[in-house]
């Protein structure tokens, strides 16, 4: 794909409202008066990083969770992907592989809808990975990822 081509430019990336506090807790980009902005406590640099990670975890589980618009909130638009074009490719491939339909890449709205639903599925497990263990979230998460990747191998 053309590295400047972003089909998801105007699409909304959304999170469930019930997880808003935890999302703020584990991401670094927020106001200073909110606790846990150190990487050790908030491992994800930006919300979109947490979102994509949750998408991948949801995709691993192979399940989409549908929520109503009222149950979710938009945290950013797809224009964010312009700075990381590999994410455009990743989401496109994920959509093709998950739906087994190559034509889906002509439907960016459907791809983002799918991704949002996969994120909803993945988020509870992501929070568990962050808090399970006796270390700080960054170390808990790292350990869990290493185990997960080793199992996959």
């Amino acid at each position, binding site marked *: 794909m053309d590295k400047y081509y972003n089909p998801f430019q105007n699409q909304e990336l959304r999170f469930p409202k019930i997880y808003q506090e935890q999302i703020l807790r584990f991401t670094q980009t927020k106001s200073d008066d909110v606790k846990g902005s*150190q990487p050790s406590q908030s491992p994800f640099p930006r919300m979109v990083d947490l979102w*994509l990670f949750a998408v991948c975890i949801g*995709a*691993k589980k192979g399940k989409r969770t549908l929520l109503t618009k009222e149950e979710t909130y938009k945290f950013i638009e797809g224009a964010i992907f312009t700075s*990381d074009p590999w994410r455009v490719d990743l989401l496109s491939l994920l*959509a093709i592989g998950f739906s087994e339909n*190559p034509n889906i890449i*002509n439907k960016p709205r459907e791809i983002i809808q799918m991704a949002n639903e996969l994120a909803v599925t993945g988020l509870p497990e992501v929070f568990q990975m962050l808090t399970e263990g006796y270390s700080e979230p*960054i170390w808990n998460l790292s350990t869990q990822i290493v185990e997960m990747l080793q199992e*996959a191998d």
Partner: protein
Amino acid sequence: MKFSKAFFKNFRLLRNLELDFSTDPERRLTVIRAANESGKTTTLMAMQWALYGDISLPGKGKDYRLHPIDWDFDNNPRVMIEVIIEFEHVSYKPANNGKSQEMTKFYRLIRSTSEEMKGKKHKRLPSTVALYELNPQGDTPIEPVEPILHDMLPLELREVFFTDGDRVLSFIQANISATAKRQRVQNAIKSLLGLNVIENAINHINVSINDTYKKVKDRSHSKDLSEVSERLEIVTNDLDKLEPKNLDLIDQLTNVELQIDEKDNEIVAILARGDQEALSRELIECRENIQKLEMRKKELEKKHSNLFRDDALAYNLIAPIINKAFQILSTLEADGTIPSNTIPVLEERINIGKCFCDELFDDSPSGIKRREAVERKINLQKQNDGLLKQLTDLFYSSRRILTDRNTQNWNWGEKYKDVLKQRNDNEEQLQKERQNQNAINIKLEQLGNTDVRAMKDYKRNLELTKEKIIRDQASVYNQIKNLKEQAKVLEKQQNSLLRRKERNYLLLSELEVSKDIRKILQNTYDALINNELQKVSTTMNEYFLKMICADPEQGAIIRKSEITPVFDIKVYGSRNRHLDPDRDLNGASRRALTLSFILALTNVSEVIAPNVIDTPLGMTSGHVKRSVLETSIEHSSQLVLFLTRAEIESCQDIIDQNAGIVITLTNTAHYPLMLKNNPNNSEIKVLRCECDHYEHCQLCERLGFESNAKLAYRD
């Protein structure tokens, strides 16, 4: 004399301290356990001050502070300083049967003074001293105090009975001049004999001889005789002035050399702890390193955090799904759907007017039908072009990704391991630098305000003073030598002139008799000294060989020790080879040699007095240490030892058998660096606890002492 108690009030670290001493003849040893800088030297000094006054202080007390260093002069402008010693003294009186009867009397000695601050300097009043005989009926004041005390414990023997274990090494140390060493040994031996009676007699005779010279001069009718007598009188007067001056200069030389030695040891000890300038530089460097490592820590934390937005992580997590997508795209590629080249080829065919199958796209009904079909296909392709382009691009980019998948860059696990290692290494370095910083801060605290440069300057000044004294003493000695030679010549001339006149025979006889008496006294004096010197030498050798025989190495090398007729302490190996104490003797042997000398003096003097020794067992260990301790106990009437824990190690059984009293002293200022528990005392002072050599308690428990585990906890 035997000490029974001592009380100290506001004498430097000894703010309010009471000590007991064992007077049991079967258990002659008192052990006062104290770490370095816990008041050992101060206690020694305080007891000597009580007995002898300011003359026993460093620099004879001039500018020497006695009050506690942290005394609050704002609220208490005057500090009362007092030392009380209670002791028993045995004397003898004739019994009815003609023999001697022993009498033990009990005394209390009180010396006190006060100090005030005048500006930045302190001013001390002359001390007052009182002596009381203790009786059940009440205390009787005894006068005159100082002569009575000095009879019991002569001033000249002060350093024999109050011994600083390190300082006493100056009897044999190489860096003290030979003259000074000999003089010290000679003075020590002279003092124990109480030869001042004979010295005084010799001085009286010299005065009498000078008077006779004067008479000769005054009564002489001969001009020559008068002149000679006058010159002789001037020469003898000059000699009378110069000889004490010479002795005084030798004394000064000894003191300066000892001060230089002490200052040297202080500087070495402080430099061992650390040079303040160098430490401050080290601290700055350390802080800079810590800053850099903290910044690196933040960078690495960020790097770690960025791993969670790494493309390798995402692709690895959903690899099966990505593979499936790639398979779908590969299928499209395989069946030619992608990449899309159909439109240009078909358009070209229409332009040519002929299909691949050679059928024509002419105007015939079949030709038109064929052309329309192809044009429909072209239009359909045009509609799908956007999608196919995306699929084509996605196919090619995912093919690249999957090719790269086996490279290191795609192994998230390896990337994480690398970051983990960097973070751990950085943290380890940071911990090391922080520990280093703490250690430097502790060293700087221990140095306090010690200015090593100032100490070195002070030492340099002492060395200049020493050089001047040596020059002055050499000059005085030369003058004495010249004057003596002149006196000899003049005496000969005078005698010769006197003999010419009969009326001078009386004066001549007077002179002859005086000189003969002087010669007898001097010979007696010299014989006594040499006699006693021999006794001290023999006794010293006996004790020394006993102490070191336990050391097979030194025992094999050393055969004999002695004090030579010129008052040098010498040691010999096999075949009478002279051994250098500084080079050929180890630390333990040097210590044993000097203690043997002290104990030999004590015994030969037959003065019954306590030996109070500060760190006698430093640098000794093993069998020699035990031997030194046992020999010292055996040959002392009352032995008070200030011992560090290291000195007590491996001698506990000897202490068990011989000590009547064991106590511990602790300096409150040692918390928190050396003491485990806070003594909860705002004043810097020495406190006593009843812990013996097997115990420690809340007060005296020390940090970092290996044998702590062996000590029982006393509540």
